[in-house]
């Protein structure tokens, strides 16, 4: 899937935010037959509670777009605390261990989610019925997905020179000219490391290291480095490439046939000070309407079959051409010392 599209000159990241707001305001989605709805009693109780406190590690654009749409729909204010997933986890743990929980709802990725499961409520939102079983656990629901992919600077990498698969990174012509994340910094890179080891065997990492990647702390920083020309190409992620391309920047990319699928989850805290508002927000975030908004704003892929985020595509379409691996974070966390030792041996 090439991520450069013909509409990119007309649209921008902000336009996407505006579009998501317009979808709500115009009742575009409200007019569709609802497949599920929140319990009226929950709605009434939530209105009485008056507000909801959301802790989110999704970036400001999608977090705020969802909060704003929820406020418009139900007249209930959402206060958003936004921070990196490690910081969100630290704060929740501190508040919980002091017996002073503050948050009602949570949007967070793995592996931080695993750390917070003890503090979450089991809640089977009526909106979850439409979402595939692989995207649900008793306490959390995946609502925004993205993939690991290759991205390159279109001014430097042209036509047939562009890579198509992970093993193209081993080509000597990219020696020292490509970027990777450092797994010491981002656990998601470990998931990629596990996948390539499975696909190509242990020799892959050795050849990868010998081709001397430059290391970055986040995929966003890397997308920026690709555009600036610091590196010609890099292992980045789908929403980073889409959003950067939307600014008119010379970046394009490809999702290799085998790739890793990451995602953001919605969950409700067990000791939520406003439990009904928390449930209602969770319903909204799981619904086709809520997922459309958060995924359009963040250039990510919805898990609800009726939600639409055209730029990022749909999982049903994408899975025809790709094999997704959803990382087993429990195993990865247990395996981290070995994986990092291997990384240090070959890549550093």
């Amino acid at each position, binding site marked *: 899937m090439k991520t450069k599209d013909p509409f990119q000159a007309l649209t921008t990241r902000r336009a996407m935010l505006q579009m998501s707001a317009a979808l709500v305001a115009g009742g575009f989605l409200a007019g569709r037959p609802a497949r599920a709805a929140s319990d009226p009693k929950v709605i009434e109780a939530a209105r009485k509670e008056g507000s909801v406190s959301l802790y989110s590690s999704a970036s400001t654009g999608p977090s705020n777009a969802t909060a704003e749409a929820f406020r418009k729909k139900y007249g209930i204010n959402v206060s958003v605390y936004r921070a990196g997933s490690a910081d969100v986890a630290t704060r929740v743990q501190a508040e919980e261990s002091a017996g002073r929980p503050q948050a009602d709802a949570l949007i967070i990725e793995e*592996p931080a989610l695993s750390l917070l499961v003890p503090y979450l409520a089991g809640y089977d939102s009526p909106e979850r019925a439409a979402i595939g079983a692989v995207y649900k656990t008793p306490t959390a629901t995946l609502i925004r997905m993205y993939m690991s992919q290759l991205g390159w600077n279109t001014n430097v990498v042209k036509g047939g020179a562009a890579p198509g698969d992970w093993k193209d990174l081993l080509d000597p012509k990219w020696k020292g000219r490509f970027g990777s994340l450092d797994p010491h910094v981002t*656990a998601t890179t470990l998931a990629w490391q596990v996948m390539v080891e499975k696909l190509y065997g242990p020799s892959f990492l050795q050849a990868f290291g010998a081709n001397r990647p430059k290391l970055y702390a986040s995929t966003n920083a890397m997308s920026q480095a690709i555009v600036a020309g610091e590196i010609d190409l890099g292992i980045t992620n789908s929403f980073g490439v889409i959003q950067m391309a939307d600014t008119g920047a010379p970046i394009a990319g490809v999702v290799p046939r085998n790739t890793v699928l990451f995602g953001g989850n919605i969950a409700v805290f067990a000791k939520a000070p406003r439990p009904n508002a928390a449930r209602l927000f969770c319903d909204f975030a799981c619904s086709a309407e809520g997922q459309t908004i958060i995924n359009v704003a963040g250039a990510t892929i919805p898990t609800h079959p009726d939600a639409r985020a055209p730029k990022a595509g749909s999982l049903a379409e994408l899975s025809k051409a790709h094999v997704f691996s959803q990382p087993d974070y429990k195993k990865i966390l247990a395996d981290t010392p070995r994986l990092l030792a291997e990384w240090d041996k070959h890549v550093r």
Partner: protein
Amino acid sequence: MTPGDAVPMAAASSGARSTAWDQVIFSMIAALAVLMVCYPVLVVALRSISKEEIGSSLTLEWITAVFDSARSREALVNTVIYTAGASVLAMGLGVLLAFLSARTDMPGGRTIGFLALLPMLVPPFILVVGWVAIADPSAGFINILASALTGRRTTWVNINTMSGLIWMTGLFLTPYVYLLVAAGFRSSDSAMEEAARVSGAGRLRLLYTIILPLQRPALLAALLLVIIMAAGDFIIPATVGLKAKIYMLPSLIWQNHSSFPARPGLAAAQSLLLVAVGLLCIYFQRRALSRGGRYTTVGGKGSRPMLFPLGKLRYPLGVLALLFALSSSVIPLLAVGSMAFMKYWSPYALKPENLTWRNFNYMLFEYPQVWPSAQHSLFLGFTGATACVVLAIALAWYVIRMRGKFAGIVEYAMVLPLGIPGIALGVGILSLWILVPGGIYGTLWILLLAYVTAHIPVAMQFVSSALHRIHTDLEDAPRISGQAWAGTLWLIDVPLMRPALIGCWLLMYVVILREISLVILLYNPSTIVLSVGLMDVWSNGFYPELAVYSLLLLVLGVVPVAVLWKFARFSSD
């Protein structure tokens, strides 16, 4: 031995006249301040010897892990090289610029002094972005120019190296040295210099035997600050250092905090190493100050520091200093400024069709909460800077003038937060105040407390080095005429320390405005501050928006600096 012993007679006489009430009040302030900084450090210390959370079984595993892997040993060696290099560079440049602009007839000294301060007003990672735009081997302007001239890919300079890292950090720390030392140069007494000159000392000799030794408190304070700040700052190691695969202690601490599985015990043990470095520095500083005799250079006689005539070198040195000031501040800022107007950032994309106002529109008008957060930041900047300066005056008075019973403890305690990374300090403060029902958790006051805790060490160095220079004879006059300690402080010491106090206030204001990692765990949606948005934009990776945000901070920082600059400069006249 306390530094007060350096001026035994004077201190003893003023100490004897302090009333018991003075002692009680100042001791209480000192005790509260020590508690304030020690609590979070204690949390870190306990964490470093606990297997899991604090309260679990004890272990030395984290402490030994600091030294036991090749990776952390390599990081320690790198940190030593980097710290030494950056400190030498910052001290050399800062002292030289301060001397040239404060004590010579170099033309444009005032402008150069102002330019030298600019890097301080910009969040460090935007300076990094600026330097990458200038000196990246592939995407830096210098190497793009080199490649265009030679016709093939050519690298003249490479920021992704140890010398590149030292260069950036050295320049980043130069303003701290400049502010501390220039204040000293400006308020120095010319009497001793006269005496030396009359007895035939040449200019260089004068410099080495009188002027620099008299500034020893300021020089040592500056050295202490740059060493700990270079060793502890994580932005440059975590960005350019990572790219260059040069691991350092702060980047390991940051990784152990924010990666999965997080290893907060190891991060705490590594932080303690930084704390130990800070304590060691304070130890040597106290020894050096206690041996060297008296530094009281502001005496009772009216004096105006003599300006060194530079002669033929006047203009060449002026041009050189201006070039340096330009390259350390204006050029990276121009790189950042040009980013702010671009649809996306790439040095190759500097063309009219890529220019836009949209980033300004978005960041200033559409970005959620930018104005409430600006209000909170301004409030916290003003109150935080003022609180830091006032507390530092009280503590310096207790330590240097009163030589209170716990002066040594106060001095050592007031350096502790420098070694603790912002995020760990945040955890410490959070874990205390969350336990207090009602309390300040979730309010602006917890942010204020966090800022004061984190930045009191720097303020303390500024105020102490200024107070060391004031002769206690000057304080006798109001005392004899019946003024209490507050009157003496207000009538004599505060006016005499004004250049240093204003410099200190400005510095506090600016660092509070741009402080990130400390507040990320402590802010609430209703107490959001500007730097939280900065963090957001930074993690999103869109440099043009980051550039707009940085320009906003720059403007908010420059206004008070421009207003107060004149007072900081001429108050010794």
